[in-house]
């Protein structure tokens, strides 16, 4: 009996060691999901960079050329606008690509989170920590994305909060003072 008991213990130990070997020192959990996300994230970052570059690239020289070559009857306004519209189209296309890649990255990240939730136990406490690190990387990319995706016209509102009705509450005294002081000042 004692021999059998010892053999059973040995077998259990072997199984544990084998399992440890295969899971901890072999392929890590969520590796496939991580790989997928890494690809999506890299592509998104690349697209953000390209869009930013495109937005910042100047078409001033193109405008000058278009204006100098404009046909009779065509105004400077028409020439300027036509060049700017072409740039706007290119930027919009690039932004569309960013949207699509951002969507793909989001889905990939959701897969990692699902996988991490399923794998997170006492044996893999580092998965959640790893997710937090990825989250920080993503936050930076999202900030860049927000800037790149915001149309130039609304950059002026990027750091403002939306106005509410309270911003227009009637303060009679303040109004009166403001009106008369501004009137006096403007004379």
């Amino acid at each position: 009996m004692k021999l059998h008991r010892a053999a059973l213990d040995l077998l259990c130990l072997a199984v544990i060691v084998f399992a440890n070997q295969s899971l901890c020192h072999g392929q890590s959990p969520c590796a496939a999901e991580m790989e997928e996300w890494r690809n999506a994230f890299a592509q998104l970052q690349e697209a953000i960079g390209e869009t930013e570059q495109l937005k910042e690239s100047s078409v001033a020289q193109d405008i000058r050329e278009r204006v100098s070559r404009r046909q009779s009857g065509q105004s400077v306004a028409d020439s300027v606008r036509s060049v700017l519209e072409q740039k706007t189209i290119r930027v919009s296309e690039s932004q569309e690509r960013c949207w699509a890649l951002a969507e793909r990255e989001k889905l990939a990240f959701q897969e990692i989170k699902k996988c991490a939730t399923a794998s997170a136990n006492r044996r893999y406490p580092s998965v959640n920590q790893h997710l937090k690190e990825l989250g920080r990387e993503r936050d930076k990319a999202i900030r860049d994305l927000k800037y790149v995706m915001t149309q130039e016209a609304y950059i002026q509102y990027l750091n403002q909060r939306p106005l509410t009705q309270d911003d227009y509450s009637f303060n009679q005294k303040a109004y009166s003072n403001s009106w008369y002081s501004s009137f006096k000042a403007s004379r």
Partner: protein
Amino acid sequence: MSTFFIEECEEPFLVRRVRLEGSDDRGEMIARCMNHPDNPKRRLAWSAWSIVLCSFLLIATPAMAASNHRDGEFAPFWESILWGGNPAANDSQSFGNNGGFVARDSIFKTYQLASSDSESTVAGDSSPQQTDPAVWKHSIREILGLQPPLGSSGEDDDKSPDKSTAADNQDNGTVKDLPILENIPPLYATPPLPQEGVWESAGLPTDKNGNPLMYRTSYRPSERYPNAIVHMLLFDMKRVSMSLYLGSSEPGATASSSIVQPEDRHKLVAITNALWKQKHSGQAGTILASRVIKNLFPGMATLVIYQDSSVDIVEWSPDIPLELVNDAKQLRHLIVKDGKVVSTIPVNGHSSDSEIGLGYLLSESEPMPGYQYWGGWWGQPSYNTTSGPDWFIATRSAFGIRNDGNLVFAAGHHISTKDLAKALVLAGCQRAVHGDANPHNVVGNIYFSDGNGRFAKKEKLSPDQKTYTLDRYVDRSYTSDFYAFFRRDN
């Protein structure tokens, strides 16, 4: 029972005798003779009364005159059919406790939407060309939010009002290059507004060949506020050039930049207000006569006048070479973009209403400068600020640009930004920028030169515009920026 009788005053100053009768004691009381003309107290009383009377005459009369004048200024021209322009002048109850406008059934009952099947009042059409009225009605009702879009087939794009400008370069049969204008069928059948939506050039300045330089119409674009009325002036920019003038209190202003110089007045045909004052415009920039007064902010809605006098309204791009720009002025965001009303804007990643306001500084009526009104004496301002749920209802102006390069100036009373923008879309504008606001600042002056540098006549675009605004810009400099429009005659 004692009785009293009073002797007449004997002494010039002091006394009268009061004799007591009916009593055993006869005596005399000495009292001051109040009735004597030389009595100091009486003189004092008369002086006090005189002062009060003089004060009344001196202070009250001008105030009353101003008050009468104000009534003349503020009473809406269309009062018989509209009470727009200044609702408070007609019904103070229209404003709620918080100062916001309260719609009342009795007001709205007088307004009836035009049926989409009924014939619109386009009689007297002076435009060179008209499109299918049915198509127009549909697209207009769509723009006004009364009808769902035609569908996703792109059909609606083909029928957008702005398509009217596609044929702008064609001959209209008589004179080449005249703008092709589409009359706008009225939204409201009742009460009718004479010639609503009909572009007219009659009675407006012309070039030396008698061709129109500008066209005008009035329109009620709002379903929610039927009394909102917009007066529009469309400039034929092939025959008219425009220049920015800086207000005398604005940064960068010089003595000559705030008044139309005498040598330019014989060509002057119109003046409109410009955009907001610099102190209210935040990061907005200005270029005047090729000189950068304040750097233009990228993306901001900008009215640009190029060196060839062509005009555009754009979201400013630093790519635009400054050497091409003569004048530029900025304010916030486009209110019309791609031929559509901009109803929401992204603010820090959130969708926000596109209405443009300035806190409590928007108003529908303002006191005339230099006058104290009765209401002001008791701490009540005699102007209606806009606040509460309808804070955006105000006197506003805007500029729109059409595909044919022609500029439309719109001055609206009792109106929101979006309703003003709707009117500009109906006028065929692709892009538009908000202009100055408040009754004191919204100006559309039309000038008729006598050929000798003087004016035979000056007219207001809007009947509700303040009359005193006609004296600015040419007779004296003005504190706020403005645009002057000149006959090209080339």
